[in-house]
């Protein structure tokens, strides 16, 4: 009996992360309640070890599990982005869990399980592997959204996310079935070869399948018109979980979009481009225009994340390897600056629940200059003003789009960036230019949260000033070797 060769060294990061999640789950059950905080420290330590394992495999270009699992530069870069995001989330959760008396062990175990799913999605070279990864990621997130069990808002968020997410999953399965019917394979590497088309009208069924896949992925990406769940779920979920949800799953969905629509369906880019073009434009306008009228900062960040999904879709309307590389860089910058904004929100929010109005930032800049300055940095970065990471991310993305002649799309994106400046800077105005007579309530200075905040601040500045020295902009999209 022949078995497919499995490269255990190449999948070491996944093995570590999976083992870590199981370990934390057992610790959650067997440790006495007052010692469960230790799971958080195991979590961040494990994530750092896994990052080293990814680093060790840097430059590996192989496909294992009978070609279904691709370990290459593209997946390694994305895995590092996921690991960085999760590390920051673990750091920022430590204090949040203590304040809200959440179950620490289960919380970290679910975060790590979700991370495992994302890493699988980044490495998927087969639609079935992608689907399994997606489910591992999503199921953990559904539970995390409802993690504040006594809070009805959190329950509502979890239920909405679960029902709509399960619905979107149905589209993905149907899409995979259509694609399989059209080309007779689920392997992304074999799919782009037209020799594979088994039916006379393969192209038609391939596009039907691709469209269904896009519906499911657009849901995870929070793109128009599948964005309805975003504000409600983001508002109700625990703030640290919202931060996790807004960065990781988006990046994982982008990874799969790149593998499916740029690699597997690469030759049909002329037919696919208008679809992504319109999705991108509609998503940008929806996110940015509705964000203007939000008074709740979590809802504002939710609409801002929809708008950013719109910018990211530009890469797929362009459909070149260069555009995909710049969208991966965009994901890195978005992870850093968006998580940073959520960290400041966590500090300001403190123990008070549900009070996430923008007015709760009034006078923050005067009372706590560091927090105010950090929030300002993240917000101008989200708006895309130089010399921050957000500007560099947008710059490379737009450059790649212009190189392919997508000039109208870039003009629309720039107009949208200008619209977004209004609602981002409104928070800055509230922080610095309105002085409250009442004393701003004292904020605590939890150590781990501040470490994460400093990392995010440095990341936002460094990625903005020296983007090319930290990021390889010539990543091949799929491992060539067997």
């Amino acid at each position, binding site marked *: *009996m022949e078995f497919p060769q499995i490269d255990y060294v190449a999948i070491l990061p996944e093995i570590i992360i999976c083992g870590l999640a199981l370990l934390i789950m057992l610790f959650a059950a067997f440790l006495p309640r007052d010692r469960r905080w230790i799971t958080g420290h195991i979590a961040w330590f494990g994530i750092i070890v896994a990052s080293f394992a990814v680093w060790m495999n840097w430059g590996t270009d192989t496909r294992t599990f009978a070609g279904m699992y691709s370990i290459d530069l593209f997946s390694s870069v994305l895995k590092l982005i996921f690991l960085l995001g999760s590390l920051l989330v673990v750091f920022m959760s430590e204090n949040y869990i203590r304040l809200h008396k959440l179950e620490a062990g289960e919380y970290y175990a679910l975060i790590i399980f979700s991370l495992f799913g994302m890493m699988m999605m980044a490495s998927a070279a087969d639609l079935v592997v992608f689907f399994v990864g997606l489910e591992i990621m999503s199921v953990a997130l559904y539970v995390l959204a409802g993690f504040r069990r006594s809070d009805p808002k959190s329950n509502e968020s979890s239920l909405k996310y679960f029902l709509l997410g399960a619905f979107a999953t149905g589209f993905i399965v149907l899409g995979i079935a259509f694609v399989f019917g059209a080309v007779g394979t689920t392997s992304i590497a074999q799919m782009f070869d037209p020799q594979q088309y088994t039916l006379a009208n393969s192209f038609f069924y391939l596009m039907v399948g691709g469209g269904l896949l896009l519906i499911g992925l657009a849901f995870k990406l929070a793109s128009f018109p599948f964005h309805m769940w975003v504000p409600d779920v983001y508002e109700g979920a625990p703030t640290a979980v919202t931060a996790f949800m807004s960065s990781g799953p988006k990046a994982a969905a982008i990874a799969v979009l790149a593998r499916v629509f740029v690699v597997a369906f690469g030759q049909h880019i002329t037919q696919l481009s208008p679809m992504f073009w319109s999705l991108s434009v509609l998503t940008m306008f929806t996110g940015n225009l509705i964000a203007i009228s939000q008074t709740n900062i979590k809802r504002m960040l939710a609409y801002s994340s929809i708008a950013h999904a719109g910018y990211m879709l530009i890469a797929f309307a362009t459909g070149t390897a260069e555009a995909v590389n710049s969208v991966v860089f965009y994901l890195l910058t978005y992870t850093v600056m968006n998580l940073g904004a959520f960290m400041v929100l966590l500090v300001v929010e403190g123990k008070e629940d549900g009070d996430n109005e923008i007015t709760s930032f009034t006078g923050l800049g005067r009372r706590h200059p560091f927090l105010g300055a950090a929030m300002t940095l993240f917000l101008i970065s989200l708006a895309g003003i130089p010399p921050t990471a957000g500007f560099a991310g947008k710059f490379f993305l737009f450059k790649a789009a212009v190189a392919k002649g997508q000039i109208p799309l870039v003009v629309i994106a720039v107009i949208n960036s200008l619209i977004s400046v209004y609602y981002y800077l409104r928070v800055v105005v509230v922080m610095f230019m309105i002085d409250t007579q009442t004393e701003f309530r004292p904020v605590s200075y939890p150590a781990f949260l501040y470490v994460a905040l400093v990392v995010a601040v440095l990341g936002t500045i460094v990625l903005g000033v020296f983007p090319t020295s930290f990021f390889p902009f010539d990543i091949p999209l799929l491992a060539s070797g067997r």
Partner: protein
Amino acid sequence: MLDSYGTVGIFLVVSVGFVVVTLGIARLFRPQRPTPQKLSTYECGEPTVGSSWVQFNVRYYIFALLFVIFDVEVAFLIPWAVVFKQLGLFALVEMLIFVGILLFGLLYAWKKGVLKWV
């Protein structure tokens, strides 16, 4: 292409038609003398108690969840067991890892008191 779907279509029409025709003919010819006993819901021969629209204890769902874990496990174990001899040691170790991961789940549930009926 269309031919193969045509077969499915005919099959669909015949299967629906069969049910409608047989039940319709039976309805035309059978005598109809309903009594309260005949119209009552059949529940394994027991007299029915109350409405079936009641809230079940949530613990049933937890047991059902645990059942699903081991149900799926068996679905993977049987094909493995059938060709066990050809697969050899490698597959044994892989299967032990798989069962081990599920065992972690059971340990967690056990420790959390899921298996106790309070």
